[in-house]
């Protein structure tokens, strides 16, 4: 307080900087223990996606004779019918799951936002047609649509990414579009026009940046959802194929033996999926609440 007293007199108000993104996230971390937990899970998932395969204590895709062993001090999560070490594979799977989800989310965020911007800012028949296509996509049960598309185009990681991206484009498109529809009426947009800016420059320079926050806050939630879909597709055999370490495929491989008491093959990857999806969802919710609070 004494510091403010000795301050030189200000002719003008102090130039206040609003709390930046970093400061706001820090505030969120301070106030929400759920967000803290979520963030820890997300960070671990991302780290495993990078180094998971390298810290495995056992070869990931080489069959051994130690089949169907329960959890022990050697194999912490036990082994499956091929003799793979489940603990190593659970740690290595984010390489596939998180990467697919990340790529799919990034693609849908980019394409969805772009289309949302264009259909919202330049309204016309082209934009309306895009909206009707989007309606059609959203009218299908998502998982069924995913299965159909993957089966039709072939089971590859690229196709899984494309399918999940396609499923999520409508969400980001609608979010951006609703922002743009209100932003385009704001005075600063007309001010840019009256300065002589081109419409395209106004759309990308002024409207897009102001409309991004809801989409960015939605992204982690979509990530969690994408992990779930990836695992789901692999579980029914439409996605990643064994022996590639992937949580959904691992659950599937243990599904037959769980009835005879060999639960570890499915349960540990299942817990991994739940935790990861939960972590991403909580982080996304936190960011979204933050965005809603402060705009």
């Amino acid at each position, binding site marked *: 307080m004494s510091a403010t*007293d000795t301050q030189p007199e200000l002719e003008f*108000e102090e130039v206040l900087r609003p709390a930046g993104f970093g400061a706001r996230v820090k505030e969120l971390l301070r106030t929400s223990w759920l967000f803290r937990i979520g963030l820890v899970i997300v960070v671990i998932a991302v780290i495993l996606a990078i180094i998971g395969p390298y810290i495995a204590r056992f070869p990931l895709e080489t069959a051994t004779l130690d089949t169907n062993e329960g959890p022990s001090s050697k194999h912490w999560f036990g082994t499956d019918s091929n003799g793979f070490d489940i603990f190593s594979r659970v740690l290595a799977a984010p390489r596939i799951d998180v990467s697919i989800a990340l790529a799919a989310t990034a693609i849908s965020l980019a394409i969805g936002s772009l289309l949302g911007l264009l259909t919202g800012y330049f309204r016309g028949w082209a934009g309306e047609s895009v909206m009707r296509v989007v309606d059609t996509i959203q009218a299908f049960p998502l998982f069924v649509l995913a299965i159909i598309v993957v089966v039709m185009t072939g089971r590859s990681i690229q196709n899984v990414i494309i399918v999940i991206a396609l499923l999520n484009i409508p969400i980001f498109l609608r979010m951006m579009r609703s922002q743009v529809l209100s932003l385009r009426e*704001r005075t600063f947009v*007309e*001010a*840019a026009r009256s300065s002589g800016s081109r419409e395209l420059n106004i759309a990308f320079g*002024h409207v897009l*940046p102001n409309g991004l926050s809801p989409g960015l806050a939605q992204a982690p939630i979509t990530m969690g959802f994408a992990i779930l879909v990836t695992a789901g597709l692999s579980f029914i055999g439409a996605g990643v194929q064994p022996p590639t370490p992937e949580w959904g495929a691992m659950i599937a491989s243990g599904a037959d033996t769980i009835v005879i008491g060999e639960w570890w093959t499915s349960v540990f990857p299942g817990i991994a999926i739940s935790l990861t999806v939960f972590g991403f969802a909580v982080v996304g919710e936190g960011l979204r609440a933050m965005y809603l609070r402060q705009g």
Partner: protein
Amino acid sequence: MLFVRDLSVEYPEIGRTTYAVNDVSLDVPAGSVVGLVGESGSGKSTLTLAILGLTRGRGRIAAGNIEFDGENLLELSEDAWREIRGGQIGLVPQNPRGALDPAERIGMQIEEYYLAHRDATTAEANARALELLTLVGINDPERRLRAFPHELSGGMAQRVLIAMALSCSPKLLIADEPTSGLDVTIQAEVLDDMRRSVEAVGSSLLVITQDLGIVANYCDRVYIMHAGEIAEEAPVERFFENATHPATIALLAAQDQHYEHERVRLRGLPVNTRNLPSGCYLHRRCQFADHAAGCHDVRPPLTDVLPDHRVRCHRFREVPELAGRRADVGTPAESAAPPHARGAAPTNGALLSVEGLVKHFPIPGSDAYVQACQDVSFDVKPGETLGVVGESGSGKTTLGRCVLRLLEPTGGRVVFDGRDLHELSKGELRQLRKDMQIVYQEPFDSLNPLLSVGRQIREPLKLHSDLSRSERRERVHELLGLVGLPKAVADAVPQGLSPGTLQRCSIARAIAPNPKLIVLDEPTSALPPEAEADIIRLLNDLQERLGLSYIFISHDLALVREFCNRVVVMYLSQIVEIGTQEELFARPRHPYSRALLASVLEPNPRAKRDVGARAERLEGEIPSPIDLPSGCYLASRCHFVRDRCRSEPQELYPLVPGHDVRCWRVSENDLTEAEIEESRRRVAASANPDAG
């Protein structure tokens, strides 16, 4: 009646406490009208809520007492409070639309209010509601009782709230900025009706306002608040003529163009009551703060200047001398006439000429349309300021947008600098935009919240000049200097800057490409009074230095008079009168212009709006712009209406060169001064009984 003594209200929080109200003493004697004036954040509302026993949240009354009608309110039980609140003390809130329940008929709402305090039958309550609506001047009260709030105009909604607050004949009525959202003509009517109703019921009135015109015209005594304390209190005439507190003088200087101490200003933002400084709370903002006088160390007591004039300032004896007189600064010639009204504007060819401009907004799904501009023609000469005045809905903002072709007009021509804007290609139009700019009403909305101010000022430079990156940066600093801001503002984002500063930034952006014409769309209406005066001064200054032409769109006639060479008066999409500032303000001819001018509240208690001026007021409601009358648009509201007015659309008739009026009675000399005088006398006579 109401005696507040040494009241302090604080909001304790961990670490630091907000001292919202500090040692406030305030009296509202029976039958008087008291004004409470202060910037936003000065503690006016907290004080009001404390008087009503509604201190919010963690707030607590730390000291003092509130005596009302012989009782100490602070010792009352919650039940007794409830009886007083509404029953004995009525409140007219600020936002009339938000204060009414949108899903209930207004008759029901008034009855409910009444029945909460009176043991009456529904029929009695209903009769009371009808009586009240008549009292507050609502036409056709039986029908209005059954109306829903959305069917009422803002002025009517405010009247309903006044009726509600008066329903139990309270001994005190508190009006919290009762007209801040209303148009000028409506404002004067609502205030007249409120004062009359209050007198009829025999209440006292406490008016909270920032508008000194209201204070001068309606109040007997004034309190001015700063940082939660009373800075000065005085009877209204002394307040306007012998103010001694620097904050009061600054306020008067900002709102009264003829005020003697015109150079006094308070610096910076309102004092943060969370972190009150030592000494006088205002010493950092005050240009007269002096170590020797103790301004920095000792909090000044509220001292008697005269028995009924108190001031909280160490230097109150010297301040009026230090503040300097109007004659001391500037040349007498300059100060005698309003700065921009001197001499005729240059007469060589028009910079902008608008011919027969029409703008309709179609209503989707029907053939109907909203008529926003109809047959609007005028010229703007280089270096001139053309004022466009009118109430909200008169089409003045649409006109500004059409002139710049930010909206496509439905018909007519706009010729700018010899080029017809509608024959230009998109590219040519973009090029031409550097010559015509606009400054908007809402300071927060007109700048992109994400980009730094500097970047936004650079944008037009990038488009219209071939300056290098560093030259552009240099130019931004230069522009900020021109609008009186430090360079550091270039790096700030809009959030966190005050409205006045933001408006300066918008002006800097507008002048960046060296335009010839700037459309000023109510550039000061969202600003506090002090900032408003500064912006007007700045615009004047820039016009002189840069030779700009302005189209100044405003509903504030005092500003238009001070600032414009020529004035266009708009009513319901049409120009009803156009003339030079001197002509129009000295001798308005059209009945609408007369009503508009008569509704101005001068910040001078010796020039109160008289009964005669009230006679000019318009009757009834503005017609809908979708369904306009076939004759003169004013016919249904005009005192001087004839049959011909109802059937014959009115042309803009020239009176003398440069002065046109859309009224056949004026143009054919049919409307005489004698008739106007007669009408004034009639209203004065009918106003007298209920004034006594």
